[in-house]
């Protein structure tokens, strides 16, 4: 287990998370582990432990959290929020942490690329003339991309 250097911790990180939309419940956690017991991701990927992620955020392990790969594993099933007695809403907290990670350019390359596709084409798969020609041959109307619709959502 890697050592934690107290001097590298960022005590203000928990306030940053709590100030981000969805992260408000962070400091209410009692660490009762009900969320971990309910989490389906934790069953297969041990690194993803909701209770520990909350602890890491509270301790201020900013770098370890934002640069990690595991914060992106959440399936957004809300099982953790369902069982939490303190209404911490961990799913929303992990969204807040992911948003902070994106702001610090820590998002995984694949996700950044997907975001680029959405921005340019309004969809995850680019529709080229090749596909549209095929569609016309089959008597289907061509697909016109409307990336501006997606951009207006941002």
């Amino acid at each position, binding site marked *: 287990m890697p050592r934690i250097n107290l001097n590298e911790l960022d005590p203000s990180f928990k306030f940053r998370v709590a100030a981000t939309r969805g992260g408000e419940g962070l400091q*209410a956690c*009692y*660490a*009762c*582990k*009900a*969320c*971990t*017991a*309910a989490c389906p991701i*934790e*069953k297969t990927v*041990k690194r993803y*432990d909701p*209770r*520990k992620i909350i602890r890491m955020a509270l301790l201020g392990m900013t770098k370890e959290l934002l640069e990690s790969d595991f914060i992106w594993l959440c399936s957004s099933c809300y*099982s953790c929020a369902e*069982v*939490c*007695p*303190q*209404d911490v809403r961990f799913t929303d907290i992990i969204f807040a942490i992911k948003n902070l990670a994106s702001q610090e350019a820590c998002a995984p390359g694949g996700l950044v690329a997907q975001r680029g596709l959405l921005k340019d084409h309004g969809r995850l798969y680019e529709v080229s003339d090749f596909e549209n020609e095929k569609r016309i041959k089959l008597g289907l109307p061509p697909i016109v991309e409307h990336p501006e619709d997606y951009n207006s959502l941002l």
Partner: protein
Amino acid sequence: MRKQVAIVGSGIAGLSLAHELSCFGIGSTIIERFPLPGGNAARFACKATDSCQRCGACIVQDYVSKVFACEDICLTCGSEVMDSLRTDSGFRLQILERPAFIDPNLCSKCGICKKVCPSPNAILVDPFTGSFFINYPECLISSDMPCVACEQACPEQAINLALTPERKELDVDAVAIATGFEPFDATAKSRFGYGRVPGVISSLDLEDRLRRGAFDHLDEENRPKSIAFIQCVGSRDVKIGRNYCSRVCCGYALRSARLMKFKFPEMKICMFYMDIQTFDRDFENRIAAARREVNLVRAIPSEIRQGLNGKPEVLYNGAEDEAIVEEFDLVVLSIGMGAQTLVPGGVLESLSTTQKSYASGGGAFGDIQPAGAFLVGSVSEPKSIQESIEDSIIVASQIQTYLGDSQRGGNVD
């Protein structure tokens, strides 16, 4: 003239307050809705192992005896405060007094009435004297059903259901509300399977079994070999509006666990908690002793479900961060305390505590405490037996001061 105080509720707080007031020479009338005195505390079992564990369950019976023996105290069971008015000198209460449908002088305690009764909780047995009582709200006649099964079955003709309740008026100088708490209904936390998964019981069910000696009567094969205690069921839970610690659950669960271990050393006992909070003075010793006997697991299970062989299975995250599905013979949910929903009528109603004020502590009473009305015991916030008695002592002296002031014509409002 001798001062009179009405005490609503005959739980440990009401009983001890009546006793304390009698020490000051103040008379009291205890109005109890249930046919038996003692309230919730009378349902608890003694948890002494080879030495006393200071649970306080025996104190209730002491106080019942003291109150019965005291001439200054009038105990009316089976009665309710229907309405209350403020008068110049105090309060006027309208009391509905239900008759004792079973004549104690004729009853031979044969128990035939309980066997023939179609309603499970309508006929009660006093755990101390063995006498039988009809619990009116549970009896079918309370919902206008013409059931006379017990009356016809009684060989001694001791039961007369045709008796009608009496309305009485009571003038008192002060009122103490000691309506206590309501145990949390564990079915509201459905993921713990109470009432759905066989083998999942509440801590009150366990108290009941312990008091009846239910485990001692079982032979070794049928006796549970493993028990799980789940803490904080209905406490410290924002989602159900109970974001407060009930203060008593850790204590009673640890005592019950140690009692079970003492009686049946081969039993495997697990206690699931988020953090242990007890307020007893020898807490450190108790927790150290409990750690040797009980497996204390810091985890709240996500779910309790019925396993393939019918026994309850607890899903939790273990100490080594592993997902565990463990089977137990018996799962005990340590239910917390909630605000009492049954409140006296009239002007006293507005003083009673709601769930919201229970959660914020202190009750609705706080700043607007009207002259002559007092809250005592767990009606305002969760209290143990010990704390309720301590509260009674404080409130008794407050009442004495108040009555003394009003006697001298001081400004009380």
